[in-house]
């Protein structure tokens, strides 16, 4: 029987693995528009449920010979396990095995001893784990940021400073018009946030080449810091700037006039630096370059054309590098360049599906880029273009090179090869340095910024634990003082057990090898008995809910993103500035969070209701004592001594997250003041607050909170009550919350790599939705982390609200700060 049990266990594990594989197949076929996906999804469900029943049969085995009912179950399961061939074989062997094994020595594994602190802990607060963790995390933040600063300043050889470009500043220096145009900001309320990198070697006596680095749509200048770092450490002065509506740039309207817009501000900045002979003597005005990614690439292309003058000698921009942008309007600018130029477009750039004609495609753009080089001599156009090959002559501004790195759109600025090509281009065209572009150190800054981010999150959680130990917040977790009945004593016992890491208890009986799992959700916890109907039926409901919510989250993301384009004032028409939900890209997340959060709540309360109703019906029909599970709702309730105590605790439950949010962003700001560093890792970042982003967040928090509280309830009142070890609770919660988004990426990119076109291209009324998929990369990580935070904070605070509130505030603030907001501030 021992081997039989092992075989069935192995079979059930195989079935669970195949469940995941069949869902993967279903996603792939869905991506190709093939209706076979329905069949694969069914296979996945059969595999999953079959595994549950096999597990149930195995758990109830008392010998090699099964009872008739169990034997029939196993037979049916074996047949159904054809959807998982390895399980089919294993189940078959197990089914026909009728020999008893040799007697095995029974080893009784004692239950894990609870590690507990001494009652009425005399431990000093500074010896508490949470306090130590908080201090260590605090220290880590600053140590990591210091090292990040070392990388950013190239060992303190580069001075990094911020300044704000205002209308007044541009007007003051507009006398030196460029090609007869002023490029001034008319509105004094408008300002652009700029960061300047000045190497020690750049002086008035030895002015340096100057490069303007411009980010794309929704990105901030910090996302281009790697270019700034690499160029500045080679001796170039670098300016990076937040474009209109993004980061710290303020603007209250979107001027329709091209000149007033100044290509999202870059023309105002270049004009200002070029004409300002007072403050920028260390900039060599004969060696100005510009580089931009995506929309930023289009902006610098227009900049180079607008500032071209009549010749290479006259052109303000001597070198321009356009990354990730081949729109027709930009292609038409190539002929107007009077400078050396580079073009890069990711081989796997998702946006390429829009450019598949003989007027507008990468191939056409590349050919025109090389051929329309302003060479007025007897230039013979090339019919075929070689990638990575330089054409033309740098000395007369006709040099052209096209690159096509193996990277997609949103990660191009983090691709070492892309960065290398950019650095080499400017090295050669602006005569910056002999240090090759392959020598890169920017990832050191990224790494330490990431450490700081992780440490900041750790700090917040530890700080919460420390605060919960203070007299002010302690009452939040204390049970109300009232007469305790026997039932409540049993409840307390279950709660204590629930807070511990529940181990498995092995029944030291003749049934060697069998284990029973103590379920914390069942009244008979102490006895460790699991009733059948709770095991299989409960598992079916539990996992079906997880699968259902994941499928809904996967399939409704893009339709809701499209809906956000249709219903909000700020849509694909970027010129609408409004106070009504002005964060164009976040509106998609707003709807997605609201709808899926609501669905999560309905499913949680609905299934609980149905389960308890089932218990009631069983009691009425069969007289079986009902095992109601209303305890699930306990964590949702905030209790206190009387209504005043309850009200006070509600206030504390809200005040605590506000304190934590304030502490987090105070740390961000302090860190920025000290080291000029924020907390980030590639697409995920926490940057210093500014008024326009904060006001924007105020609108989004209340609505998106529905998702966060829904997740907190699911993690702590459902998954957390399955009686699993804590690591499994956290892992399942994290996966359950992110798997839907992961499947969006699987569907999109499987279709992309198979057909050349992403799955999500146009939607609804021809709206482009591919950029919303780029957002999913960061969203997946945050949705994976969120349940972990919700769980940890619940265990610290004893309620589901505080964790949800602080996570909502911090995560949404991070997301909005890293995106675009058309709020007129």
């Amino acid at each position, binding site marked *: 029987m021992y081997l039989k049990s092992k075989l069935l266990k192995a079979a059930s594990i195989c079935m669970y693995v195949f469940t995941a594989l069949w869902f993967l197949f279903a996603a792939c076929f869905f991506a190709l528009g093939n209706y076979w996906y329905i069949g694969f999804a069914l296979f996945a469900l059969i595999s999953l449920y079959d595994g549950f029943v096999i597990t149930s049969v195995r758990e109830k085995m008392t010998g090699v010979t099964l009872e008739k009912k169990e034997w029939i179950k196993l037979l049916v399961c074996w047949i159904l396990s054809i959807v998982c061939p390895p399980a089919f074989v294993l189940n078959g062997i197990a089914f026909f095995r009728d020999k008893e094994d040799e007697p095995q020595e029974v080893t009784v594994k004692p239950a894990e001893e609870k590690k507990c602190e001494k009652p009425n802990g005399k431990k000093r607060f500074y010896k508490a784990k949470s306090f130590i963790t908080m201090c260590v995390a605090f220290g880590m933040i600053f140590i990591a940021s210091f090292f990040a600063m070392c990388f950013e300043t190239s060992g303190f050889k580069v001075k990094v400073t911020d300044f704000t470009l205002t209308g007044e500043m541009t007007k003051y220096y507009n006398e030196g018009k460029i090609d007869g145009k002023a490029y001034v900001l008319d509105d004094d309320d408008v300002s652009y946030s700029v960061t300047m990198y000045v190497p020690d070697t750049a002086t008035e006596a030895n002015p340096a080449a100057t490069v303007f680095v411009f980010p794309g749509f929704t990105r901030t200048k910090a996302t281009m810091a790697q270019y700034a770092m690499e160029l500045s450490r080679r001796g170039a002065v670098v300016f990076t700037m937040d474009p209109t509506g993004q980061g710290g740039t303020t603007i209250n309207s979107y001027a329709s006039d091209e000149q007033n817009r100044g290509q999202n501000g870059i023309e105002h900045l270049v004009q200002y630096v070029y004409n300002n002979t007072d403050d920028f003597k260390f900039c060599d005005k004969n060696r100005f370059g510009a580089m931009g990614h995506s929309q930023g690439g289009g902006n610098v292309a227009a900049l180079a054309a607008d500032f071209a003058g009549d010749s290479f000698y006259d052109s303000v921009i001597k070198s321009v590098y356009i990354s990730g942008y081949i729109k027709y309007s930009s292609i038409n600018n190539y002929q107007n360049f009077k400078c050396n130029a580079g073009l890069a477009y990711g081989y796997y750039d998702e946006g390429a599906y829009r450019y598949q*004609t003989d007027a*507008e495609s990468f191939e056409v753009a590349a050919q025109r880029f090389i051929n329309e080089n302003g060479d007025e001599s007897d230039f013979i156009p090339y019919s075929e273009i070689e990638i990575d090959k330089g054409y033309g002559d740098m000395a007369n501004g006709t040099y052209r090179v096209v690159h096509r790195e193996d990277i997609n759109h949103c990660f191009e600025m983090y691709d070492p090869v892309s960065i290398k090509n950019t650095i080499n281009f400017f090295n050669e065209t602006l005569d910056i340095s002999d240090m090759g572009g392959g020598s890169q150190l920017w990832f050191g800054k990224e790494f330490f910024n990431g450490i700081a981010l992780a440490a900041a999150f750790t700090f917040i959680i530890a700080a919460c634990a420390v605060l919960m130990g203070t007299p002010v917040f302690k009452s939040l977790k204390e049970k109300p003082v009232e007469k305790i009945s026997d039932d409540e004593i049993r409840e307390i016992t279950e709660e204590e057990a629930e807070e511990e890491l529940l181990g498995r208890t092995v029944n030291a009986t003749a049934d060697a090898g069998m284990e029973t799992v103590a379920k914390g959700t069942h009244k008979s916890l102490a006895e460790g008995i699991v009733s059948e109907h709770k095991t299989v039926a409960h598992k079916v409901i539990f996992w079906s809910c997880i699968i259902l919510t994941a499928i809904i989250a996967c399939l409704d993301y893009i339709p809701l993103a499209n809906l956000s384009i*249709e219903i909000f004032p700020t*849509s694909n*028409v970027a010129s609408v500035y409004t106070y009504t939900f002005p964060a164009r890209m976040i509106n998609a997340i707003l709807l997605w969070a609201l709808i899926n959060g609501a669905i999560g709540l309905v499913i949680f309360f609905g299934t609980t209701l149905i389960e308890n109703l089932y218990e009631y019906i069983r009691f009425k029909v069969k007289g079986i004592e009902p095992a109601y599970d209303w305890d699930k709702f306990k964590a949702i309730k905030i209790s206190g001594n009387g209504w005043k105590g309850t009200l006070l605790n509600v206030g504390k439950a809200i005040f605590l997250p506000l304190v934590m949010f304030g502490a987090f962003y105070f740390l961000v700001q302090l860190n920025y003041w000290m080291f000029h560093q924020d907390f980030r890792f590639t697409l995920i970042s926490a940057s210093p607050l500014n008024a326009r982003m904060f006001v924007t967040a105020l609108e989004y928090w209340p609505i998106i909170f529905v998702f966060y509280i829904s997740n907190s309830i699911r993690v702590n009142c459902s998954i957390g009550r399955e009686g699993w070890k804590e690591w499994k609770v956290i892992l399942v919660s994290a996966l359950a919350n992110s798997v839907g988004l992961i499947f969006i990426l699987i569907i999109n990119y499987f279709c992309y*790599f198979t057909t050349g*076109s992403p799955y999500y291209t146009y939607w609804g009324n021809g709206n482009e939705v591919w950029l919303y998929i780029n957002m999913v990369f960061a969203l997946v990580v945050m949705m994976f982390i969120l349940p972990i935070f919700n769980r940890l904070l619940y265990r610290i605070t004893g309620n589901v609200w505080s964790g949800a509130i602080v996570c909502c505030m911090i995560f949404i603030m991070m997301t909005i700060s890293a995106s675009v907001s058309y709020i007129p501030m």
Partner: protein
Amino acid sequence: MKKYVIAALLVLAMCMTALAGCMRFLEKDVQVTLDSDGENWGCYTVNSFNNAIVPRPDVPEKFAGMTFIGWTAQENWEELEPNQIKVSANKEFIRYDDVKDYVKSGSITLYAAYVKVDLVIAWYDRHTSGTDSGLNEENMGAFKDNMYTYLASEGYTPENMYIDIRSYSGTVGASCEKIINDADVDIMVGWGNNLNSTGGIACVEKQGGIAIGSVSRYAASLNEKELTKLVFTWIKDTYTVNDVNA
């Protein structure tokens, strides 16, 4: 159990790394040979991430007076009615999408197709929050039926004519550039007033207030051919909703 999960995650990570390195192997190269009346016009490689810019063939003497309408995989295209010939979306650009359904053993030959084109009408297939032409396959289908009825009443036999009603998408600039490249469009419908300034189109006549679909847009005639003038006049008479001239 914990070890198994960690092992599984490690295997998953390794598989994803390996898969990332194998992306190129998912691309299926297709060798495209271009044939114009038996003459080889080049061999190009396309795949899901690479297209090919191809030359426009000179019209062979055999097909003098006809127009090159694109590249087709149908070797017997000369035996087909003009409306039955399936050609590539672009004349000077071959995409993987154009050939993927016809590829055998990784290669395909495309043949230049020439027909006597009577009339080409371009319609703007653009539906965004900022620009909506109001035109779609359905209302252009109704337009075609009405036009055929009108031509029949004028003594023409449209069933025997090659009248190409084709869509152009993308921005005004890109779509008009394509029309210029195609060099065979007679009438344009659905664009805005900027088809000259932004699109670079040189037209004989342009009129606004034309609502073939749900939106009032512009129509333009690009030459003075008799059939062009006839159909353009009919469009103005039939679909003008308000008197908006160029």
